[in-house]
């Protein structure tokens, strides 16, 4: 027999039938169902296959702890592997598919692997596949098959069409869990005016109350409390929302499933919303998860948690079987038995305890339940689903003490007690403590004020206790919030039959074995990972006794359910084997997330082009309109080159660079870092951060400067202009702008507190264009007013304020290209107008734009260093910049740059290379002396290369050991990776116009 839908009962809407499919088969599904309840209602017993042995698996639980019912959900781009049927709310059009099976979950070709299970015991991989062969090939050959067999769901490589929102939230009190205790806490705090967020992972609040029969007194309680909560504007209730992690400083991560209960998100709503909640206080009322008992074949479809059977009957109106055997060691199964009997099932309750008190047994007997005390199920019988249970009398350790009896059944419901959900608490505070009374781990009393726990999570047992603990927790939180609890009279707990909890008289049996302690077949501890009781035993035998070793050696608890139902059992078994108590044996640390979280949800909108913020020059659109190929430079987009027709990069940059040398070019250098350095001590500040002197710089002048890091290596370079006595305008490289600013602020605010200097970024305020080439002056002079740009009036390293088309600009004369060149600074909102004006005026001068590639070619021809040379490991001397360093004053890095290794004469230093070949060298090639084997780290490396239009040959900058002294030497330039060995001559790095006549023109 299989499960079936009851004629009445349950919190589902029988009037509507939804189109829901599993492996193409139509399921009987109604609004209010989960995929799991629809599967059971439709008689789908086998919904999955085991990880290792491919044994048939059915629905096992009714919540996120289910280890078995993982399915593929949806098709196409919205396909999702490893979706949990027990927490999937059905919707019209839902398609689901079994995973990890072929050709069909009901007849899986790999099921035969179970025969090999004795050889696949714990640690099997570590002991085999080592092989007689050297190297890794043998293992990798074997591994390729293992990899194919492993894994669970199958991912599709299609982009996710859905959106995810991230929301920053703040509240006084976060209540996690919408069961009786959480609702009571929220109501207590809400009435007191606290700003409350209540979250529940289910699509309906109520927690375990939803598993009570419809019409039970608890329904009225729930209705009253929810009604009042919803009327409180200071209480936000989030359903379908999982608090997946608790983090430092009372920050919680939540995932709200906004649209997962729909075929697809509608009306531009996100699929999920990630809430980042900063909460002053929290009440964790996360409930408890029922523990199974371990026995032979305990993974057969039809074996379920007792509470789950109750949930399916009462909440979903689905009876998972007609003949149900319950196997229990505690009081909580009594209520299950009663409800099942009332729903028409033939119920046998086995209880490990020798006797049950009359107040439990009498009503059960009256309801027609068969009671077998002092007995437990030792084996589930059946091939692909449960047909019968083998029941034995047991002692307090779960060992058989007598003959077995066989009871025909189609469902075996298990209750081995309950495990409080301490995950969130443990994520923050590590180790929970063992509570002997309830036989479970509960949060330790830490005296931490901000997190309170309530309900089953602290092993509160009766409904009244749970409600009271919610109220108490909220009161404590309110006290810490300095709010008064105005009215704590939460509606009184309704009376429920057998409202007993699990703690009283629990007999802590974990597994059921024969008299010698052996199971009568495969008995699984971690059902999802196919870890058997014997694997735990073997791990113990081999000395993997610490909990972490046990977990890692057997993989118990490491599957997608993270051992929610199994960890405690593995621990108990290890304790038993070691002759220790459970707390002595330990507990594993819980890690976030509580349930798996979609990667996209935590990414939000930060993907694709918005992976990180992008920075655009004020004239970005002009570059695009010109057909420029753009390139990333840190956060910036910069024009790389402007292809003329079908030009390649190589063709374009050569043309652009040559054009600058022959005519005039313009390049957008708005990306340069710009920092206002202001204040009476500005000059002294510059004097300290730059290696060269600044005290003598007059207003209207600018100067090239170099900065070191504190450890004496070169950090950055750039020009700084003196705008006025206390006012300087510093420029940095594009890459280092933020770093230089932060460093300057650090020095001023931590070390040089008395200096009167302010540094402020003005990178956004100013756009900048370099106009370079023999006709640069003529062009600029033709378009500016109010300034004399003549050689005499404005030599190099001077600047002048001027006007272009009515717009104020500042024109710096300095050259990076080596040509007569100017930098035009303009307020960024006017940048496009000035750029346009320059182009308009530039027509007679044949003005052309050039990109970063041509800019690089020009600077290499001049031997100017840039990022490839200032690479964090080079010194002033390495880069030929020593001459700038002042010997008269200390500066940042001036002491540590004198260290032994930094001053070795043999260090690689900057040189030029001339390639005699028809091929250019590639940056990153290594340098070796002629005739030397090209081995080891080489005598240097090529840092920057280009075709030099001006010289008509390939040139390069390189750092070569004792470089300067080797001028004229022919060396090998070796690029092993691309099989290129070239010959090059070491020359001065100042390839072109070393005397600087062109830039001084």
């Amino acid at each position, binding site marked *: 027999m299989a499960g079936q839908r009851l004629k009445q009962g349950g919190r589902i809407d029988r009037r509507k039938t939804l189109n829901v499919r599993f492996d193409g088969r139509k399921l009987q599904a109604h609004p209010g169902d989960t995929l799991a309840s629809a599967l059971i209602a439709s008689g789908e017993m086998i919904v999955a296959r085991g990880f290792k042995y491919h044994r048939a698996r059915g629905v096992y639980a009714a919540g996120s702890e289910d280890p078995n019912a993982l399915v593929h959900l949806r098709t196409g781009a919205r396909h999702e592997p490893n979706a949990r049927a027990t927490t999937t709310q059905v919707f019209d059009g839902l398609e689901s598919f079994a995973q990890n099976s072929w050709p069909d979950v009901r007849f899986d070709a790999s099921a035969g692997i179970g025969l090999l299970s004795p050889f696949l015991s714990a640690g099997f991989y570590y002991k085999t596949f080592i092989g007689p062969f050297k190297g890794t090939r043998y293992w990798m050959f074997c591994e390729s098959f293992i990899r194919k067999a492993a894994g669970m769901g199958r991912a599709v490589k299609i982009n996710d069409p859905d959106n995810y929102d991230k929301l920053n939230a703040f509240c006084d009190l976060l209540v996690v869990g919408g069961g009786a205790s959480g609702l009571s806490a929220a109501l207590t705090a809400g009435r007191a005016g606290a700003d409350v967020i209540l979250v529940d992972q289910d699509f309906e609040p109520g927690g375990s109350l939803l598993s009570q029969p419809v019409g039970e007194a608890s329904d009225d309680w729930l209705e009253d409390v929810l009604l009042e909560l919803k009327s409180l504007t200071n209480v936000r209730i989030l359903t379908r929302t999982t608090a997946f992690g608790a983090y430092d400083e009372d920050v919680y991560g939540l995932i709200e499933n906004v649209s997962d209960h729909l075929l697809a998100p509608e009306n531009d709503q996100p699929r999920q919303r990630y809430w980042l909640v900063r909460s002053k206080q929290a009440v964790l009322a996360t409930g408890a998860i029922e523990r199974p008992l371990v026995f032979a074949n305990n993974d057969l479809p039809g074996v379920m948690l007792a509470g789950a059977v109750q949930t399916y009957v009462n909440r979903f109106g689905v009876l998972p079987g007609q003949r149900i055997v319950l196997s229990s060691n505690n009081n909580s199964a009594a209520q299950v038995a009663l409800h099942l009997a009332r729903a028409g099932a033939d119920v046998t309750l086995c209880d490990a305890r020798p006797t049950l008190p009359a107040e439990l047994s009498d009503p059960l007997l009256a309801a027609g339940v068969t009671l077998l005390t002092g007995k437990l199920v030792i084996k589930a019988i059946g091939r692909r689903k449960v047909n019968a249970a083998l029941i034995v009398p047991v002692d307090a350790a779960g060992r058989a003490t007598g003959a077995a009896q066989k009871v025909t059944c189609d469902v075996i419901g298990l209750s081995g007690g309950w495990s409080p959900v301490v995950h969130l608490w443990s994520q923050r505070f590590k180790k929970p403590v063992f509570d002997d009374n309830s036989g479970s781990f509960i949060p330790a009393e830490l005296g931490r004020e901000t997190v309170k726990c309530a309900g089953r999570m602290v092993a509160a047992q009766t409904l009244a206790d749970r409600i009271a603990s919610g109220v108490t927790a909220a009161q404590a939180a309110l006290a810490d919030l300095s709010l008064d609890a105005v009215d704590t009279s939460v509606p009184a707990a309704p009376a429920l039959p057998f409202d007993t909890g699990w703690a009283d008289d629990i007999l802590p049996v974990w597994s059921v074995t024969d008299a010698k302690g052996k199971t009568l077949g495969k008995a699984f501890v971690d059902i999802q990972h196919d870890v058997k009781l014997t694997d735990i035993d073997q791990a113990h035998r081999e000395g993997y006794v610490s909990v972490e070793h046990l977990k890692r050696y057997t993989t118990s608890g490491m599957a997608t359910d993270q051992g929610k139902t199994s960890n405690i059992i593995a621990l108990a078994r290890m304790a038993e084997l070691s002759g220790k108590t459970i707390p002595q044996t330990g507990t594993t640390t819980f890690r976030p997330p509580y349930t798996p979280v979609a990667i996209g949800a935590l990414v939000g909108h930060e993907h694709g082009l918005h992976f990180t913020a992008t920075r655009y020059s004020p004239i970005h659109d002009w570059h695009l309109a010109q057909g420029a190929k753009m390139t990333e430079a840190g956060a910036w987009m910069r024009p790389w080159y402007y292809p003329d027709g079908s030009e390649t990069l190589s063709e374009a940059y050569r043309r652009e660079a040559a054009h600058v040398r022959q005519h005039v070019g313009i390049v957008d250098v708005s990306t340069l870092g710009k920092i206002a350095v202001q204040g009476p001590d500005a000059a002294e500040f510059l004097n300290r951060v730059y290696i060269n002197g600044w005290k003598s710089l007059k207003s209207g002048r600018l100067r090239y400067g170099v900065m070191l890091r504190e450890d004496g290596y070169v950090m950055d370079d750039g020009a700084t202009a003196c705008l006025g006595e206390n006012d300087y305008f510093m420029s940095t490289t594009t890459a280092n702008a933020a770093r230089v600013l932060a460093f300057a602020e650090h020095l001023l*605010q*931590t070390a040089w507190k008395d200096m009167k200097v302010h540094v402020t970024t003005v990178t956004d305020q100013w756009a900048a264009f370099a106009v370079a080439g023999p006709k640069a002056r003529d062009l600029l002079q033709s378009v500016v007013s109010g300034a004399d740009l003549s050689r005499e009036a404005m030599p190099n390293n001077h600047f002048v304020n001027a006007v272009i088309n009515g717009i104020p600009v500042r024109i710096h004369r300095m050259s990076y290209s080596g040509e007569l060149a100017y930098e035009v600074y303009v307020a960024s909102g006017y940048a496009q107008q000035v750029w346009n004006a320059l182009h308009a005026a530039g027509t007679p001068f044949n003005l052309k734009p050039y990109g970063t590639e041509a800019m690089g070619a020009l600077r290499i021809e001049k031997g100017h260093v840039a990022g490839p040379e200032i690479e964090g490991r080079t010194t002033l001397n390495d880069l030929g910049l020593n001459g700038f360093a002042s010997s008269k004053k200390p500066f940042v890095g001036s002491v540590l740059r004198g260290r032994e290794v930094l001053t070795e004469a043999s260090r690689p230093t900057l040189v030029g290379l001339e390639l005699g070949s028809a091929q250019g060298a590639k940056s990153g090639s290594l340098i070796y002396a002629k005739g030397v084997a090209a081995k080891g780290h080489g005598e240097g490396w090529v840092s920057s290369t280009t075709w030099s239009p001006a010289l008509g040959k390939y040139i390069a900058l390189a750092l070569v050991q004792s470089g300067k002294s080797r001028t004229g030497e022919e060396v090998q330039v070796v690029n092993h990776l691309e099989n290129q060995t070239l010959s090059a001559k070491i020359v001065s790095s100042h390839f072109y116009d070393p005397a600087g006549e062109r830039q001084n023109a």
Partner: protein
Amino acid sequence: MLRINCPVCGTRDETEFTYGGDATVVRPAMDETRAQLWLDYVFNRDNPRGPHTEYWHHVQGCRQWLVMERNTLTHEVGECHLAKEAC
């Protein structure tokens, strides 16, 4: 997630800040020439397991460098003040 109590801006997420390391190291005076003092400042750290005094820079806020007490074992944050006002 650390929440840092910036004296200017109030309590903010750590994402608005960048970390500046141990704030107990003292930068030698500019004219200090003994390399060992500079080596200690630049490289060597107490690296305590427990209370730590450290720099944070409120880069996306007021751009002030802060000195904050924080426990490196528990991540609990304590006093936070402007680096300029720290002694």
